[in-house]
């Protein structure tokens, strides 16, 4: 037991320097705020810079037409690049999302052992891989074997880039679902895989969607693996076994040309890429997380009532 005297002694050790504490509190708040500003400034600067440099290039024709001949007066547009990027995102997600989500389920639900730890380690290594290595790997594995650059090869390379991100975020968000929900499911006599696929997965939905969107944003901007796999093209898509164009590749090509008008087009293409990723992000969030948004709105309404 603690005696009354001891308690008085303990109290002496607390610091009651209220003024200093209040100041410290404000200082910490300022530091946090400043760091946010430091983080946001480059972001805004990039957006403003990209837009102001590329705005001149933006037009309907720019978005829909094929690129003109290099050096000619007809600059053309980046239509094939936009189409290519969309196709590549779609196909890579078709491969990368199911495999990544399944892998994440394995790591979270069945991976509490030697195999799981090994897979987790190599998955993390893969996430750190320079993407150009993945490009070269795909070049050797697919492009050289099949004998040509293709949409498939590009999608394969990009899906490898997105795989570790999807896998890891899936694992982390599944682990956040409390064990009590799983137990409630098991107690209802629901089989394990069904508990995982219905109850756990739906509880982890928002984390899952965020992870997938992060990986989509990541691959939308990848250039290195594409150089070795889709090559680039100035035509709209001819088939999945042929080369196509993609926005990052087009940006790279345009900005390395010695003409000012091409460089402006490069900025314009960069702006288009940013907007594209942003709209995919907002669109997917709206589609999959709508219900959550609604409850949030309700909370706000309840809050304003009281």
């Amino acid at each position, binding site marked *: 037991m603690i005696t009354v005297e001891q308690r008085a002694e303990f109290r002496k050790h607390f610091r009651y320097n209220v003024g200093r504490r209040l100041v410290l509190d404000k200082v910490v708040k300022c530091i946090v705020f400043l760091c946010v500003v430091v983080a946001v400034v480059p972001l805004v600067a990039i957006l403003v810079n990209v837009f102001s440099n590329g705005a001149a290039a933006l037009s309907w024709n720019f978005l829909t037409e094929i690129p003109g001949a290099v050096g000619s007066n007809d600059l053309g547009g980046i239509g094939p690049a936009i189409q290519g990027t969309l196709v590549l995102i779609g196909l890579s997600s078709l491969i990368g999302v199911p495999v990544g989500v399944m892998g994440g389920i394995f790591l979270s639900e069945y991976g509490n052992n030697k195999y799981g730890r090994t897979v987790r380690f190599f998955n993390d290594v893969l996430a750190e891989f320079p993407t150009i290595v993945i490009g070269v790997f795909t070049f050797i594995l697919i492009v050289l074997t099949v004998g040509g650059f293709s949409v498939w090869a590009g999608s394969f390379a990009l899906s490898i880039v997105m795989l570790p991100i999807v896998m890891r975020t899936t694992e982390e968000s599944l682990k956040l679902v409390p064990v009590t*929900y799983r137990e*409630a*499911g*098991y*107690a*209802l*006599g629901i089989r394990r895989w069904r508990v995982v696929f219905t109850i756990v997965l*739906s509880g982890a939905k928002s984390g899952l969607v965020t992870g997938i969107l992060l990986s989509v944003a990541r691959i939308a901007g990848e250039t290195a693996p594409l150089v070795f796999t889709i090559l680039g093209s100035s035509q709209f898509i001819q088939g999945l076994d042929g080369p196509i164009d993609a926005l990052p590749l087009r940006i790279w090509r345009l900005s390395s040309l010695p003409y000012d008008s091409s460089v402006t087009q490069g900025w314009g293409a960069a702006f288009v890429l940013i907007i594209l990723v942003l709209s995919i992000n907002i669109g997917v969030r709206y589609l999959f997380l709508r*219900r959550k948004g609604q409850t949030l709105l309700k909370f706000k309404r309840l809050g304003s009532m009281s």
Partner: protein
Amino acid sequence: MMETMTKTPLKDNSTEDVKYKLVAENISASYDGIIAVKNVSMKFRDKAVTALIGPSGCGKTTFLRCLNRMHELTKNATLTGRVLLDGEDLYSNKVDPIINRRKIGMVFQKPNPFPTMSIYDNVACGLKLNGVKDKKIIDEVVEGCLKMASLWNEVKGDLKKPGMSLSGGQQQRLCIARALAIQPEVLLMDEPASALDPIATQKIEEMIQELKKEYTIIIVTHNMQQATRISDYTGFMYLGDLVEFGETKQIFENPRNEITAKYVQGQFG
């Protein structure tokens, strides 16, 4: 077997109409190297409420989880002994644990409705995920179970609202409705009212009295008054042992064991 007989002062030999729905024989269980239940044998009568009481950490919950094979889902869990449901061993290799969990429903200490599901879906999911497709039957079961859990009148207009929008007591009754929906024969309840206020607790207790007419109910409780109010039989557990098991009246008014006496008189706990 002799030991079981002495520990269960029920009229084993006198009448034939005594029916034991669930029989636990020599259950010992541990997790993470901690021995939580030591050689416990108990018989649970059909259409009766059996309460398990005892101080924290005495193995009540672990024992309860052995009865529907939930214990084996715990990390590093071990278990020996047998559990017979209508004479059939739940732990036999021939028996699928999933099928038995459908016969033995469970309600947990903290209300845990599925967060992404509506009130309706929370009750319906046990059916849907176990293969029931007929919408009419599901509707009927949902309504019936919500009525049995005496929640229907409060939610009948809001079945599409999220289950999490209910109050704590309502959520727990929703969980009971969810457990009832898979048409179990036995209902295990792990301190179902410990997180609830007195009024919600009273509602749950009334409901248990109603459910008793059809189900075998086994309830773990910290609350001795609750045990006297709702149970027909009481088992007192201490440090993993079943110290005494008998009719609730006898356990509380005339305990045979010294430790039981001290516990029910509130001398420790």
